[in-house]
C-alpha cells in the first residue's frame, strides 16, 4: 500500500505541487524532518552566537591579555597590603578596589589568592566580594571569566535581538556590581565577626 503512494509521488513529482507524504513512510519522513529541524534550529542559534560574539571576543581577549602581560599582575600586591588595614576608610579599598582589580588582573579563580594579604577575619568577606564580581565584569571585560560568559551574554543576546544597544546595560551591570560587592563585603564581614565572637564564647564555656 505505501509503495503505491511512493510511485504516485514519483509520477507526480514533475508537477507543480507535491502532496505531503502519507502513510507509514510519510509519518517517518515527517518525523525525520522534525528531528533534523531540532538541530537546524540549534545550528542557527550556534551560528548567530559564533558570528555575533566570537570575533570581537577574540580581539578583546587578545588586547586585554596583552595589557595585563605588560603591566604585570604582581603590582597589585602592594594594594593588598593597604587593604588589610583596619578602619572605615579602608572598607572601599578592601571590598571594592581590591576585588575589582584582582578580578580584572588575576581573573577567576586566581583573583581569590589576593585574600592572603588580609587578616583571617576579613577573608570570607573578601572572597564573597571578589566572587560576586566575576559576572558583572564580563559585560565589558570578558577575559576575566571566559568560562561563564552566558550569565550576561544569555540575557544580552535577547536584548540585542530586540535591536537595542548593549552599552548601557553593560555599564550599569558593571557599576551596580561594584555597589553590590561593597555591600556584600561589609555585611559578610559583620556576620563573620558575629560568628567568630559566638564561637570564642562557646569555647570559653566549654573550657
Amino acid at each position, binding site marked *: 500500500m505505501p509503495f503505491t503512494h511512493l510511485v504516485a509521488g514519483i509520477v507526480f513529482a514533475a508537477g507543480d505541487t507535491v502532496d505531503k507524504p502519507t502513510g507509514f513512510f510519510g509519518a517517518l519522513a515527517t518525523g525525520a524532518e522534525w528531528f533534523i529541524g531540532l538541530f537546524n534550529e540549534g*545550528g542557527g542559534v550556534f551560528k548567530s552566537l559564533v558570528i555575533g560574539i566570537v570575533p570581537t571576543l577574540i580581539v578583546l581577549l*587578545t588586547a586585554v591579555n596583552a595589557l595585563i602581560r605588560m603591566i604585570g599582575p604582581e603590582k597589585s600586591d602592594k594594594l593588598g597590603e593597604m587593604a588589610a588595614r583596619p578602619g572605615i576608610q579602608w572598607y572601599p579599598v578592601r571590598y571594592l578596589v581590591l576585588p575589582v582589580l584582582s578580578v580584572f588582573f588575576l581573573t577567576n579563580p586566581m583573583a581569590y589568592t589576593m585574600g592572603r594579604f588580609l587578616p583571617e577575619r576579613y577573608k*570570607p568577606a573578601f572572597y564573597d566580594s571578589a*566572587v560576586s564580581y566575576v559576572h558583572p565584569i564580563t559585560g565589558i571585560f570578558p577575559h576575566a571569566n571566559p568560562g*561563564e560568559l*552566558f*550569565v550576561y551574554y544569555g*540575557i544580552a*543576546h535577547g536584548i540585542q535581538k530586540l535591536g537595542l544597544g548593549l552599552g548601557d546595560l553593560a555599564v550599569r551591570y558593571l557599576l551596580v556590581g561594584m555597589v553590590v560587592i561593597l555591600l556584600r563585603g561589609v555585611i559578610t564581614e559583620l556576620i563573620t565577626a558575629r560568628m567568630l565572637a559566638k564561637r570564642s564564647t562557646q569555647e570559653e564555656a566549654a573550657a
Partner: protein
Amino acid sequence: MSSTTASSGMGGINKLLVTVGKSVGGVVGALYQSGRDAVDTVIRNILPFMAFISVLIGIILKTGFGNWLAHLITPLAGNLIGLLAISIFCAIPVLSPVLGPGAVIAQVVGTLLGLNFAKGDIAPQYALPALFAINPQVGCDFIPVGLALGEAEPETVEVGVPAVLISRLITGPLSVVIAWVASFGLYSSN
C-alpha cells in the same frame, strides 16, 4: 680623538637600536602570546558552551517547550516581586551551593530569559535586575576552595562558609532592589 667620538656615537645608536628592538619584540611577543591564549580560551571554554546552549535552545524553541516555559517565567521575571522571589530561592543556604557549580544553572536560566526578552515577553528594562536575581548563588559552591586560595586557616573556612551563605540571603534580594532602582531610564521609550 675623532675616531673615539665616532665609535661612542655608533655605540649610542647601537644601544638605541637594541633597546627599541627589544621593547618592540616584547610588545609583539606579548600580543602574539595573548592571541594564542585568547584563541585557546575560545576553543576550550567558550565554543563548547555555545554548542551546549545551542542544542538546548534549538530543542526548546522547536518543541514549543519555550512557550510553556515563557508562561511560567514571564510572570516571575517581569516584575520586582517575582525577581525577589527568584533571588531568595537561589540564595537559600542549602540550595545555593547546589545551584552554584560552574555557574551552569545561572547561564542556562540567563539564556532562557534572553529568549523571553527577545520575544518581547519581558520588558527590556528588567534585564538589569534579572541579571542579579538569577545569580545570588554565585561562588557558593566554591567557598572552601576560594578561601584556601587566599591561604585561610581551617577555622576561618569553618566560620566563613556559613557566614557567606547567610549573607547571601540578605544581599541577594538587596542586589535585586539596587539593580531595579538602577534600571530606571534603561531602554525606556521616553
